[in-house]
């Protein structure tokens, strides 16, 4: 079927990026990230006949990925009784290849789900406030406030890592290709036009 072939071609190009995004959304849990992506891919398949425009496809993919993530988090929490005020220890996935990554995943895990999704879409996907609001189905003002609060929390947890100079530059040939783009440092972000 031609439609299946087109879907498969799109998936071949975009699935890796969706897994990366889901890995950040799940704060480094590769198994849950894969579950979330599988759910999103099924939604994409069902919606495929009406997603003719490439931009529509990518925007819809982001939306169903976030929805699948939110649903997964809600479901997993319903399954277990929370008897602790502190986050339980959890094995970090294979994506945590260095201490900075472990620290990043730990910091992301401390953010509420929607706030984490906001900061991932804004800084990993480099989406505008408007596009992030569309993906999360909320108002731009909500994105701005959630981003500001997330950055404050991340800045507190990641201060040393954010001032670390060991990371690959975004234009480095080994830098992973995806929806990323260089942005100002956090210190500049909190005071510059990024929030508008």
């Amino acid at each position, binding site marked *: 079927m031609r439609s*299946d072939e087109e*879907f498969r071609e799109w*998936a*071949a190009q975009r*699935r*890796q990026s969706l*897994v*990366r995004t889901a*890995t*950040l959304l799940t704060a*480094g849990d590769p198994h849950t990230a894969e579950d979330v992506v*599988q759910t999103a*891919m*099924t*939604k*994409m*398949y*069902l*919606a495929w*006949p*009406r997603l003719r425009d490439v931009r529509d496809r990518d925007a*819809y993919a982001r939306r*169903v990925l976030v*929805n699948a993530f*939110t*649903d997964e988090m809600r479901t997993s929490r319903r399954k277990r009784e929370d008897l602790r005020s502190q986050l339980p220890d959890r094995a970090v996935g294979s*994506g*945590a*290849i260095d201490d*900075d*990554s472990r620290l*990043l995943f730990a910091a992301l895990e401390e953010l509420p789900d929607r706030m984490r999704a906001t*900061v991932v879409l804004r*800084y*990993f996907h480099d989406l505008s406030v408007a596009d992030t609001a569309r993906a*999360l*189905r*909320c108002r731009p003002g*909500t994105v701005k406030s959630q981003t500001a609060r997330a*950055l404050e929390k*991340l800045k507190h947890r*990641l201060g040393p*890592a*954010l*001032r670390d*100079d*060991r*990371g*690959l*530059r975004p234009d480095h040939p080994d*830098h*992973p290709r*995806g929806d*990323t783009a*260089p*942005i*100002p*440092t*956090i210190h500049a*972000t909190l005071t510059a036009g990024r929030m508008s």
Partner: protein
Amino acid sequence: MSDLTTLMSRATATVDATPAAVLDDDVSRGQRARRRRTRLVGTGVAGAFAATVAVGAPLLTSTTPAAAAELVAYTAEQPAGFTIAEVPEGWHVLSSDRSSLMLADGDDDGSDPNSFEGRIVASLVGSQSLPGGDLEAQTFAVGGQEVLVYDMLGADGGPSGTLGVFAPEGDGDYLSVQLPPELHWTGEVAARFVEGLDVTDDAGHTVG
């Protein structure tokens, strides 16, 4: 100077390219989901949604009557303000603008464009438009959100057979969809139809 984007990119750099077998599995899962959808409407098996019936819920049946309209893929041009995945078989877009969408069956000639009778009407509304008072809703978990399905009252104050579906759109907004009794839909099918309705960026609140 490292930044947040660089940290995120580095932390996910080990995610490998997608093997062909994984893509095959994605397609297979999609095909199975599509077949399940078809069976859901065709046979009345209500397995696609997790339904929680509210206390004192109205008389929405859990089985699909034989007369129920079947959902089919929508292949015509998408209307303004909304995107549609599926429509009842034989139904078409009668009108659409930034604030509302109206669908009608093949026998509807479009006369009296202000009448909602026998037609599907969708619009973006605020939370103040949720039915209140005595009406209880069935809730369906759809796409990570709880969709509310009400059995609306008629002019005589009794159940009219019309379903009112409200799907959260964020920040207190809801996609409101009125489904006429001619469809003979259960809450499950109503929720599935609304799951396939998306509000685009062009959509605006219904005024009045």
